C-alpha cells in the first residue's frame, strides 16, 4: 500500500510486512517474527530521524 501512502501525501513511509499483518508474519517462528517486527519499527525510528521534503519511502521491510 505504499503507493497509496505516497499519493495521499504521507511524508515518512516504511514498507511493512503485508496488509493482513503489517508488523508480523504468522508463517515465521515467534522469535523470527518478533525480529522482523523490530526491524520494521527500527526502520520507522530511522525515518523519524531523517529530514524529508516530500513523501519518502524508507527501505523494504518485507524481508520475510
Amino acid at each position: 500500500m505504499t503507493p497509496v501512502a505516497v499519493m495521499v501525501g504521507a511524508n515518512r513511509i516504511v514498507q511493512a510486512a503485508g496488509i493482513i499483518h503489517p508488523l508480523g508474519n504468522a508463517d515465521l517462528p515467534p522469535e523470527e517474527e518478533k525480529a522482523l517486527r523490530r526491524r520494521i519499527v527500527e526502520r520507522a525510528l530511522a525515518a523519524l530521524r531523517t529530514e524529508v521534503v516530500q513523501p519518502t519511502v524508507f527501505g523494504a521491510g518485507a524481508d520475510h
Partner: protein
Amino acid sequence: MSALRVVVYLNQFFGQIGGEERAGVGPRAFPGPAGAARAVQQALGDAGRVVATVVSGDNHVAEAPEAAVAAILALVAAEQPDLVVAGPAFLAGRYGVACGAVCEAVESRLGVPAVTGMHAENPGVALYRRRAHIVATGADGARMLDEARRLVALGLKRARREPVGSPAEEGYFPRGVTRNTRASANAAQRATAMLLDKLAGRPVTSEVPLPDFPRVAAPPAVRDLGHAVVALVTDGGIVPVGNPDGLEPLAATRFGAYPIGGRGALDPGQYDNVHRGYDTTFVKQDPHRLVPVDVARELEREGAIGKLHETVYSTTGVATTLANSERMGREIAAQLRAARVDAVILTST
C-alpha cells in the same frame, strides 16, 4: 418581479477609501453603489438595486475576523437585503478570505443568499468553497464588468430561489455537494461512450472526480529519539474486547484512545478487531502484528526511544471519507500534542 435589494461588500481599495495605508479601517456602510459596486449595479440592470456598499479594510478583518465579520453583518442586516455580493476579490488573499467569511456568515446567520468571486489560487477558495458560492474569476480587475455579470447571474438565481446548475455550468468552485440527477443514458451506456471518446482521442470528463489531497509539509526530523515520547497510532481497527467506543467496522467517524497502562505487551485475550477491510485473523491472534507494543517497550528499555506513550489511538481506515479522516487526524494530533508526544508511528493495513 420587483427589484431585489442588494448589498455589496468591498475592501478599502475597491471601495475607494484608499490603498494599503487604509487597510486598517473598520467596517462602514455607504448608501447606494460605491466604488466597484457600480459594476455590480450595472450588471444588475433593472433586476436589482444596490441599496448599500459595506466597506472594510483588509487588515482590520484579517486581524480580528470574528469581531469584524460581526460588525459587517450588522451593517448588512440593517439594509434587509435579498442578496449580498462580496468582491470579487480576484487574487487578493486577505480580501478573498474576508469575502468568504462574509458570505458564510450572511448565509448561515442572516439566511440571505450571498455570492463572491475569486481566482482559483486565492486562499479564500480553499477555505470557503464548501461553505460559499465562489465564482471563478481572473487574477485582477481588468475585466471587472464581465466578472460582476457572472457573479450577479448566479446571485440572482439564488436570490430568486431558482435551481442552480452544477459548478461547471454556473462557473463556481465545487462545493463538494453530491446531488441526484436523472441521466439520459444508463451507466453502462455512458461508460461505453466515454471509452469510445477516449479511444478516439476526444476529451473525456470523469463523472467521479478524484479527491484532491492537500500537501502536508513534512514535520522536521526528531533529532534525539532517546529523549522523545513516541506514540503508536493505527487505522487497523484494534479495540478492547466489547468495542467500548463503538468504532465503526467501516466508514469510521470515531477513533478510540486505549491506555496500555505500562504493560510490556498486549494480551490477545483483551483485544478484538472490528476492521472490515482485511482478514483480521492474524492480528486477532497477536495484536502486535498491528500495534508493536512489545518491541516498542524493548526499545524504550534500551534507550532507543525516551518513552512509549501510554495511550494507543485506533480507528478503522476503510471507506472512511477524506473529511472524517482529516478531522480525526486533527483531533488525535491535538491530544498527542497536549500529552507532549514528540513522534508517532502509525501502522496501517
